[in-house]
């Protein structure tokens, strides 16, 4: 009797487990197929978009009428951005595939700059046409490689999930056609080095960073002393010093310490010992001092940096800390690229952080030509719908990474504030920003 019951019991539970297992398996498969399909879509769209890109560049070259040219270039810009989006959805991050992405965005930049230009007045130069021809050739090569991969994928039913698994488990992906295919694409792109694609203007990639630094290289003892002076005069024995590796933009020395609940961190340049990043972290108590008082503390801290004059341009309170942005000023002109940010604890006014990377990267004794336009003339260039509240002269870096002297106008329309930069030499509207710093708390509304 008991035996029959037991047998029946085990039989039922075995069948039950089997059914449950099968259903789990089905569910898992459904999810896997879903993920696989997403990858497949991104991949096939990528190949389609690259092909489209190739065609569009071709027809741009064949085009004669300028009215058609601008929309065509805008179209190229759009397609490159879509192709880039597709790449972003493929599991390629840990594969060397970033050259191709860079290449795509460079085509995009080139197309954008030429598309927004008035081609009636400034037609494509010989050089630019030649560049387009090069891009046409390169895109053809990429397209062909991708089409080959696509063909194999479709013929052999290759799955992206396998690539995922292969990449996840082990780096040496032996015989994976997809991975190999993409490696070939990447090699092709590497072949046409980025330099020749230079988009016609000095981008920051090509100029050397931190070239204006002054001073001599620090010895270990000097570095310790400098670090301690910035980190609340902490005992140099407590500091841990490390040098930066070869990937750093500028050789730096890092000092850090841990002292009870407090820890500190400082990055300084090896040359001259200029502090780039300083951070002190400790629990901050309830705010006792106001933002204004804190900004004074921040300002007196900045003075230690040996800068002639800085001006507070932005302040905001985040809970019980205040964050302040200063820029360099000279002859009442603000130099926005030379910026530094400070963080002050509002419980006792202690400076908790300094970020002066931008400042040391850009700051130098520049020669800025005096404005050609009068302020009156510049005012006329501002949209008459806007009410001008404040104006001053300032230097900004524009879209093509050039430093330009501008008239800066703070204007309002309805309840919104806009900052307008009008080039003081040629009257062009260099930049228009919407100034928004606060946001309502959504959790109170929902």
């Amino acid at each position, binding site marked *: 009797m008991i035996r029959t019951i037991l047998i029946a019991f085990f039989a039922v539970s075995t069948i039950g487990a089997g059914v449950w297992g099968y259903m789990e398996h089905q569910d898992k498969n459904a999810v896997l197929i879903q993920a696989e399909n997403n990858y497949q879509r991104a991949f096939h769209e990528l190949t389609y978009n690259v092909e489209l890109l190739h065609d569009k560049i071709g027809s741009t070259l064949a085009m004669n009428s300028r009215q058609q040219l601008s929309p065509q270039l805008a179209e190229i810009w759009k397609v490159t951005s879509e192709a880039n989006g597709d790449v972003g959805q493929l599991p390629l991050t840990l594969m060397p595939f970033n050259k191709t992405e860079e290449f795509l965005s460079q085509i995009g930049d080139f197309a954008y700059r030429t598309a927004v230009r008035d081609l009636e007045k400034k037609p494509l130069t010989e050089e630019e046409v030649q560049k387009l021809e090069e891009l046409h050739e390169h895109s053809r090569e990429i397209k062909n490689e991708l089409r080959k991969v696509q063909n194999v994928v479709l013929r052999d039913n290759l799955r992206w999930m396998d690539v995922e698994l292969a990449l996840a488990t082990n780096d040496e992906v032996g015989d994976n056609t997809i991975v190999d295919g993409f490696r070939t694409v990447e090699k092709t792109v590497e072949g046409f080095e980025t330099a020749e694609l230079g988009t016609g203007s000095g981008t920051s990639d090509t100029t050397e960073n931190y070239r204006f630094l002054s001073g001599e290289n620090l010895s270990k003892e000097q570095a310790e002393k400098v670090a301690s002076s910035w980190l609340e005069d902490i005992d140099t024995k407590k500091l841990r010093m490390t040098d930066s590796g070869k990937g750093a933009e500028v050789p730096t020395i890092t000092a850090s310490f841990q002292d009870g609940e407090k820890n500190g961190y400082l*990055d300084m340049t090896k040359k001259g010992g200029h502090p780039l990043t300083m951070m002190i972290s400790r629990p901050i108590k309830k705010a006792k*001092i106001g933002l204004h008082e804190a900004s004074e503390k921040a300002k007196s801290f900045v003075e230690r940096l040996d800068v002639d004059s800085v001006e507070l341009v932005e302040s905001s309170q985040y809970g019980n800390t205040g964050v302040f942005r200063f820029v360099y000023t000279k002859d009442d002109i603000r130099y926005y690229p030379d910026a530094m940010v400070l963080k002050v604890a509002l419980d006792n006014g202690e400076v908790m952080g300094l970020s002066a990377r931008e400042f040391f990267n850009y700051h130098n004794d520049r020669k800025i030509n005096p404005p050609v336009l009068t302020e009156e003339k510049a005012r006329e260039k501002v949209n008459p719908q806007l009410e001008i509240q404040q104006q001053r002269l300032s230097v900004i870096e524009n879209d093509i990474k050039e430093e330009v002297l501008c008239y800066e106008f703070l204007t309002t329309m309805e309840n919104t504030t806009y900052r307008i930069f009008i080039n003081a030499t040629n009257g062009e509207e260099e930049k228009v920003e919407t100034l928004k710093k606060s946001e309502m708390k959504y959790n109170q509304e929902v």
Partner: protein
Amino acid sequence: MLWKKTIVISLGLSLMIFPFSEWTIGRPVYGFSNQVIQQGATGNDVIELQSRLQYLGFYNGDIDGVFGWGTYWAVRNFQSEFGLEIDGLVGEEVKAKLNKASQYDEGYVKEQIQKGNDFTHYGGVPKKQQTKQDNNKRDQNKQTEQSTPNEPTAVNVPGGYSQNEIQLMANAVYGEARGEPYVGQVAVASVIINRVQSSSFPNSVSGVIFEPRAFTAVSDGQIWLTPNETAKEAVIDAMNGWDPSGQALYYFNPNTATSSWIWSRPQIKQIGKHIFCK
């Protein structure tokens, strides 16, 4: 009879001159703290400042407790109208002038903020006309009423970002680096920001975070743990411009990294357990 009438009329007249409401509200005591209020500040002082400026018609925005650009222009206009130095700072003099010229019905303002109503605080307009109650919100507000008393209804966010992006990044940072020192967390957050700015990665925070295989915390679901305040603070620091990673685009844990490719990247430095590289 005539005698009685005169009393009633004169009483009525006196009421017209001194409306009851004036008395019942009671003169607010000097509400401001003695701090100088400047742009970017948040809190009760700002709520009072905005209410008073609105009472006088200088400020037309929401009374939200954050000293933004709208409040800044209102203060400047007030200063120019009242013959004060125009600097956008609210010091003793401005506070005294404001106090004299305007009234601040603290009880009313705080109540509206607590209830989450749309409201204004103009002088000379009955309070009833200045509130818009949203009935849908009332029930929910009852629950939250106690938890958020008298707090500003807005927050400062670093330029170009929103609270939800801060939250998403805090999730990622917490999932990736919760055991790391504070600097290490800021560094991870700045890698995300550096990637957004780089041309070889997607151009949005969400695009970078959810790029397949980009972050292990995203792949294994640790990103959905609830982040703590430290992670959030680290994200805000990174958004405000701190980058202890030295402009890194990648980082890895040398003990667990499986890819040999990542070792070939030029390294910048090590913070905590992570090596940051170009």
